[in-house]
């Protein structure tokens, strides 16, 4: 489990339950590394502002994280973290590697406004 203040997805069942029972979900799948930490911090900052979105992290090295690692949108991704935006259970956007707060907000506004 990642050492962040976000809610954690810890299993495949957990993952399915989260994306199917929430309309708007952002999941950051990574490690406790320098490219991932800023994205977790940004998500923590945005939780209050985007009340209709639920924010989760998932440990990249957990076996069940194959749901993100092997997701079709992860094809070609070679930089952590893998960050996903789900709407009504469908992945509407995914990014690889570090993102700025501005980039994250743009995607949240684009898909979840």
């Amino acid at each position, binding site marked *: 489990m990642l050492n962040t203040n976000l809610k954690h997805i810890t299993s495949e069942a957990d993952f399915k339950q989260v994306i199917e029972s929430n309309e708007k979900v952002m999941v950051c799948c990574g490690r406790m590394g320098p490219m991932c930490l800023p994205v977790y911090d940004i998500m923590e900052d945005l939780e209050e502002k985007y009340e209709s979105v639920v924010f989760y992290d998932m440990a990249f090295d957990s076996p069940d994280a194959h749901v993100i690692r092997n997701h079709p949108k992860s094809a070609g*991704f070679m930089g952590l973290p893998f960050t996903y935006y789900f709407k009504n259970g469908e992945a509407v956007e995914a990014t*690889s590697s570090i993102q700025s707060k501005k980039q994250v907000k743009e995607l949240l506004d684009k898909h979840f406004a």
Partner: protein
Amino acid sequence: MNKITDTYDVIVLGGGPAGLTAGIYLGRAKLKTLIINEGSIGGQMVLTHAIANYPGAKVDISGRDLSLDMKAQAKTFGCKIESNVEVTSMDLSGELKQIEIDDDEVFAAKAVIVATGGTPRSMGVPGETKFKGSGVSYCATCDGDFFEGKEIIVVGGGNSALEEAVSLTQYASKVTVIHQFDHFQATEHAVKIARENEKIAFIMESEIQAVLGDQTLTGVELMNMKTNQRSIVSTDGIFVFIGYVANTVALPGSLALNSRNEIVTDAAMMTNLDGVFAAGDVREKRYRQITTAVSDGTIAALSAIDFIQS
């Protein structure tokens, strides 16, 4: 700029070790202090997985944990911290300096300490941005295992480049180090370790001109700096370690910078602008360590306290 939202004694721009240390000293001096940080708290310190040379800290404390300890200490002394915000405008010229964040709130202060740190230097060539996260990386420990059994390029000739090249050989089948000069800036020891590694090859006096590929990264276009001859080198990935640039782009043009765009200060961390101080990696200096950033932050804070009280 919008109307002033709140006024402080001192605003610190940057939440790395220099900025947080300044915040601790200013808070302890009972000055109303705001730290504005565009990224995550800790700055480049969080890039370090284990810090073994910070006096008094437990052995191998992570950069993130040390950052969180410094942040907690600054908050204990009353510092307010705004992190992950964008500075959209600033005026450091008058007696009351003004800084706007997110095109929204404007904060004013009698003194400002600029501790905005540095950012990993990118190559600035076509294709680099397109393949960021899908072949171009700036962090070997983060992304190295995506290149298991693949051939990769490491760009740079300093300690970071050579040490990371060696580290990447645990995943990659071949690592080619590309460096623009005919000699390395790294220590002799780092060069020796890299040269002794059979998986590492070297292309000297050459620069990448473009990152190539359609859907996936396939190679780079190289130029030999001596002959101007161009060539294509196939690769699966590129790791870039070519140093840092000072984060001074958003600062006003009236602030004196050197030829490397670092802020020029005196020994008291004073800049050429009245009431504006600088600390840490953003200023002109030779050694960039957490300890030297902490020293700068201390001096800048004490100078700012003197400035305000005089």
